[in-house]
């Protein structure tokens, strides 16, 4: 069992937020943490890894205590038996692929694990290359392999596939599952992608504003999540105009411009460059400021 009980005060762009969680994760399971951006997912992972200090909390991995603020005890990241994969891979640019993995070896550890991992992840042919010459998917495979060299019990994945295209994602999901089983890992995955979570995780924790508001099997949690029942898109107003008594606004969402009709009295409340949220639901299209 992995026990994670943490409290940390966060000062985000949106103001003060209390990250407060209490999780119990069975050994060998694959769980996901999901929820809106800025909800504290990455911070939670960093707290588990020991890269940030909580205000109070307790982390236990099996019988081993990693953190217990009551006894003012905190194991350094170096001593926690976990592997962390960063969103942007964080490979060492000055080392070849093989050296990146060899670097991770503990003192006196058998080097065989390096070639074993390179084989599983199909990296053997890239051994002598430098990270800068690799594609995103290849870099991510190296990052995964490197995180497992020390044979950690716990694998932490911080949106590891978000920068990859769909085909590469699906392939890497299979790699991760393969590693999860063959190395007897307990894996915590932070992800936004519902299909990814449904495919990989047994359980998902929905983290919103620093609190776990829902947890359960992916199918149950996503069925009731607000973002699943109605679609919403955020954008900025580029243009507001009225013609023949009808008002329209142009909203920039990502790289696209979307034209939305709306009542004149609502259009008057909006300004160029103000943030809006477009919501589609069963009752139609709604526009919210902010």
């Amino acid at each position, binding site marked *: 069992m992995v026990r994670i009980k943490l409290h940390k005060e966060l000062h985000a762009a949106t103001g003060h937020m209390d990250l407060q969680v209490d999780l119990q994760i069975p050994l060998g399971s694959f769980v996901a943490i999901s929820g809106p951006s800025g909800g504290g997912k990455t911070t939670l992972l960093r707290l588990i*890894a020991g890269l940030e200090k909580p205000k109070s909390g307790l982390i236990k991995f099996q019988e081993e205590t990693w953190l217990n603020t009551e006894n003012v005890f905190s194991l350094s990241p*170096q001593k926690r038996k976990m592997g962390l994969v960063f969103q942007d891979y964080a490979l060492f640019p000055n080392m070849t692929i093989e050296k990146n993995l060899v670097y991770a070896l503990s003192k006196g550890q058998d080097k065989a694990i390096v070639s074993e991992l390179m084989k599983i992840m199909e990296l053997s042919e890239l051994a002598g290359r430098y990270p800068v010459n690799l594609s995103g998917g290849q870099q991510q495979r190296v990052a995964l392999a490197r995180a497992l060299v020390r044979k950690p019990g716990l694998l932490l994945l911080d949106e590891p596939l978000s920068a990859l295209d769909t085909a590469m994602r699906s392939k890497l999901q299979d790699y991760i599952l393969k590693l999860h089983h063959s190395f007897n890992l307990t894996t915590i995955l932070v992800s936004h992608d519902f299909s990814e979570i449904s495919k990989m995780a047994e359980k998902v924790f929905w983290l919103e504003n620093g609190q776990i508001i829902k947890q359960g099997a992916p199918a149950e949690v996503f069925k009731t999540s607000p973002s699943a029942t109605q679609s919403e898109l955020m954008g900025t107003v580029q243009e507001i105009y009225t013609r023949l008594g009808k008002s329209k606004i142009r909203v920039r969402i990502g790289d696209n411009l979307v034209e939305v009709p709306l009542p004149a009295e609502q259009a008057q409340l909006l300004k160029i460059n103000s943030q809006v949220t477009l919501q589609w639901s069963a009752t139609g299209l709604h526009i919210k400021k902010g």
Partner: protein
Amino acid sequence: MNTAFWGTLLLTFKLATVTTVCLLFIGIPIAYLLAYSKRRVKPLFEALVSMPLVLPPTVLGFYLLLAFSPDRNLGEWLFEMFGVSLVFTFPGLVVGSILYSLPFMVQPIQSGFEHLPVQLSEASYTLGKSRWTTLWKVQLPNIKPALLTGLVLSFAHTVGEFGVILMIGGNIPGETRVASIAIYEEVEALNYQMANRYAFVLLAFAFTVLFLVYSINRRVNNIVR
């Protein structure tokens, strides 16, 4: 005349070499602490390190002269403990040059540390590596251009130093007479031909050094992208 010329140049480059090597060992820890410190006193230390950039060299030289004088506490202590006098001697020049060129070593390296993605160090920590190992194997190898810039600028800046040396070194041939001082002396003696030779060597040196730094940094940037 010719031996004096080469002797002076040799002394100049010896001073710059010794100073740069010392600065590398002093500069890296200071740059590391300044780059990663979140303490409130950080600006105080940053200001102290950068002082020589804006301070007239004569001011620094004047205070060093006072501090190192054998009839003062520090100078007296140094002389009794180690038998060294830092006024009008080569070791004194080295100490003065280290203080004077400190920002030229610290600032590029500090900036190198600060621009290095923090995830690299964090990844190293999560792989069980100490801060020391991370510094040697990950951080320093990935800021090589910054290290090179620091080395070259410190060296070149020491070669071009004038005010501090004049204050605490004087003008003793073979001991404290460096090229920049020699130029001044030759001009005073209306010996323009000699001054010209010194000046041209320093000019050519400064250009070559800067050209090398920019070329190497360009190559490194092309590789690392």
